[in-house]
C-alpha cells in the first residue's frame, strides 16, 4: 500500500477518543492510569483477536469456538504456574519471568496442538458454508468448554500474579500497575512480530495475497490449504497466549471465560473490519480504552458502551474501519 493512499482516519480514532474523555475524567493522573490500563487490555484483546481475523480474511471462516483456546491457555497457565511455586513466590521480576515465560510457551503449544485437531475435525468439513460453520464451531466451543470442566473442574480457579509483577509504578502522580506495562510490552512485541512476518517474509506475502485473492495464489501453485492450517494453528496459539495474559489480568480463570472474551473479540472484529489486522488493533485499543473509561465514569454501562461504540462505527463505515475489498 502506498504511503499516500494510507487511510489514516481510523488510526486517529484512538488518540481522539483518549483526548475526548480527558475533560470528563478531570484529573490528569487518573487519566494516565486509565489510559494505560485501557491500552493494556486492548493489547491483550488484540493478541487474541489477531488470529481470528487472519483466519477469516484468508479462508472466510469465522470461528465461534475461538474462545475455547483462550480458556485452554489460561487453564494450562494455572497448572504450569501452580507447579512452579518457587519461581512465582520470588520477588525478583526475572525469576517470575522464568515461570511466566514457560507458562506462555506451554499454553501456546497446547492451544496450537488443539488447534490442529479443531481445524481437522471441526472446521475442515464445512468450508464455504457459513451457516454450518457458525453452528459447528459453536458446537466445538460447547465440547471444548465441557472438556475443560472435566479436566480442571467447573469452578473458578485463582491465577495470582507472581510476586514481582504486582504493585504499581508511579509516573508523577499517576499510578500504573506493573503488569499492565508488561501486557503492553508483550502486546507490542506480538504486534511487531506479526507485522514483520506479514510484511517482510515470503509467508506473510502469501498470506496477504491469499486474503486479497485466494484463487490467484492457488493458481500460482501455492498450497493455500497448508498455509491456512498454519495460520489457524498460529491463531489458536496466540489465543492461548492471550488467555494466559487475560487470566493474569483478571487474576482468576473460569471455564466460561472463553465465551465471555469471545463477545469482546467479536465487537473488536466488527469495529476493525473482518479480516483486517490493523483494524483489529484499532478495534481492540478502542474497546480496551472505552471499557476502562466507562468503567470509571459510569460503571453500569461498561459493556453497553462497547455496543454503542460499535454501532457508531458501523454508522460511519458499515463494514468496519478497514473493510476488505470484497
Amino acid at each position: 500500500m502506498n504511503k499516500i493512499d494510507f487511510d489514516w482516519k481510523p488510526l486517529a480514532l484512538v488518540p481522539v477518543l483518549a483526548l475526548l474523555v480527558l475533560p470528563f475524567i478531570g484529573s490528569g493522573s487518573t487519566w494516565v492510569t486509565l489510559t494505560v490500563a485501557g491500552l493494556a487490555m486492548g493489547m491483550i484483546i488484540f493478541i487474541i483477536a489477531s488470529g481470528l481475523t487472519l483466519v477469516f480474511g484468508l479462508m472466510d471462516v469465522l470461528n465461534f469456538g475461538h474462545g475455547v483456546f483462550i480458556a485452554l491457555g489460561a487453564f494450562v497457565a494455572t497448572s504450569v504456574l501452580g507447579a512452579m511455586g518457587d519461581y512465582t513466590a520470588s520477588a525478583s521480576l526475572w525469576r517470575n519471568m522464568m515461570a511466566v515465560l514457560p507458562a506462555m510457551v506451554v499454553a501456546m503449544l497446547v492451544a496450537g496442538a488443539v488447534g490442529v485437531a479443531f481445524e481437522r475435525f471441526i472446521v475442515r468439513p464445512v468450508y464455504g458454508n457459513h451457516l454450518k460453520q457458525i453452528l459447528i464451531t459453536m458446537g466445538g466451543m460447547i465440547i471444548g468448554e465441557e472438556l475443560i470442566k472435566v479436566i480442571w473442574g467447573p469452578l473458578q480457579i485463582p491465577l495470582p500474579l507472581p510476586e514481582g509483577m504486582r504493585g504499581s509504578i508511579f509516573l508523577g502522580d499517576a499510578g500504573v500497575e506493573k503488569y499492565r506495562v508488561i501486557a503492553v510490552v508483550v502486546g507490542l512485541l506480538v504486534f511487531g512480530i506479526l507485522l514483520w512476518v506479514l510484511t517482510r517474509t515470503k509467508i506473510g506475502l502469501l498470506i496477504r495475497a491469499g486474503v486479497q485473492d485466494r484463487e490467484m495464489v492457488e493458481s500460482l501453485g501455492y498450497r493455500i490449504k497448508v498455509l491456512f492450517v498454519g495460520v489457524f494453528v498460529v491463531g489458536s496459539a496466540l489465543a492461548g497466549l492471550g488467555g494466559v495474559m487475560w487470566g493474569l489480568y483478571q487474576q482468576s480463570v473460569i471455564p466460561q471465560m472463553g465465551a465471555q472474551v469471545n463477545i469482546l473479540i467479536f465487537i473488536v472484529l466488527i469495529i476493525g473490519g473482518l479480516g483486517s489486522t490493523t483494524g483489529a488493533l484499532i478495534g481492540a485499543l478502542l474497546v480496551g480504552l472505552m471499557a476502562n473509561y466507562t468503567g470509571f465514569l459510569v460503571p453500569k454501562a461498561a459493556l453497553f458502551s462497547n455496543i454503542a461504540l460499535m454501532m457508531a462505527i458501523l454508522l460511519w463505515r458499515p463494514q468496519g474501519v478497514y473493510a476488505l475489498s470484497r
Partner: protein
Amino acid sequence: MLNRLISNDYPRSRVLAVLLVAILLALAFTPFIVPGVKALNVAAKILVFIVLVASFDLLLGYTGIVSFAHTMFFGIGAYGIAIASTRMGPGWSAILAGLAVALALSFVLALAVGLFSLRVRAIFFSMITLAVAAAFQTLASQLSEITGGEDGLTFKMPELLSPGFQLSESPFLGVSLDGRLISYYLLFFTTLVLLLAMLRIVNSPFGRVLQAIRENEFRAEAIGYRVVLYRTTSSILSALFATVAGAMLAIWLRYNGPDTSLSFEIMLDVLLIVVIGGMGTIYGAAIGSGVFVVAQSYLQDLLGLGSDATSGLPWLSALLSPDRWLLWLGLLFVLSVYYFPTGVVGRLRAMGARG
C-alpha cells in the same frame, strides 16, 4: 379441515405422524396420565420450549441466519409479565399490558438489530446478536430496581390461574381442578395456536421466499425479492413468537430472573434442539423439545448411574457425570450437523419417501 389446519404441511412419514400424535396426546392429557408436580412442570416446560424452538427455527431453519439474541426476546417476554404483574398487581390487565409492552420492545429491538446487521452480511448478524444479547443480560441484572437484579422477581397471577383457586370441590377423574391445571391448559392451547400459526407462515408464499433466500440469496435478489426486507421481517416475527414464549414461561413459573430466561445456556439448548430435531421443519421443534426436556429432566439420572458404575475409572466417571451431559449433547450436535443436517424429522421423512 385438517388440511387447512396444518397448512397442507403433512408429516410425510408414518413414524413422524405417530410421534407427533403421541406428543400431542401426551401433552394434552399429562395431568390425567402422570400425577405429580414434576411431571406437570416438565410438560409445561416442553410447551414453552416448543414455541421458543419453533420460533428460532423460523430464523435458522427457514431463513438461514443464526441469531444468538433469541433468549433476549424470550427474556423480554418473561420480564414483561413479571414487571407488569409486580407493578400493577396480579390481574389480567397486567398480563395484557406486560405482553403488549414486551412485544413492542421486541419489535423495535429486532428491527434495529436487523437493519443494522442484515444489510451487510449474514455472519455480521450472528456476531452482533451475540454482543447485544450479552449486553442486554448485563443490563437486566444491573437494573435491579426494575428487574429485581440477580434475584429476579416473584409475583402473583390472577385469581383464576393461581394454585389456590378451585374450580369445583370434587376432583375430576382423580385430578383436582385447580388454577395450576387451568394455567397448564392455557399454555397448551396457546402453544397449539402459535405452532399452527407458524406452520401457516412457513407454508405461505412469504415462507417460500424465505426458503429461497436460504438456498440462494443472490438468486432470490435477482428474481426481485428484497432480501433485507424479508430477512428483517423474519427476524422480527421470530422475535415476537419468542416474546410470547417468554410470557408463557413467566405465567407458569410465577417467577423470572436472568438465569431462567436470559442465560446463554438456554440459547445453546435452543440451538441444540433445533439442529437435532431438524432445521427447517416446524415439527422438529415439537419432537426435539419433547425429547430434550424429558432427557434433561430424567436422563441425567441415568448418566449419574453410569458415572457411579464407573467410579473405578476416575476419567470415565468424570466424563459420565450428569453435570457433563452437555458434552454428549455437543458431540451429538456436531455429528448431526455433519451427517444429518435435516435432523430427526428430515431423516424420518427421507425414510418415508423411500419406503
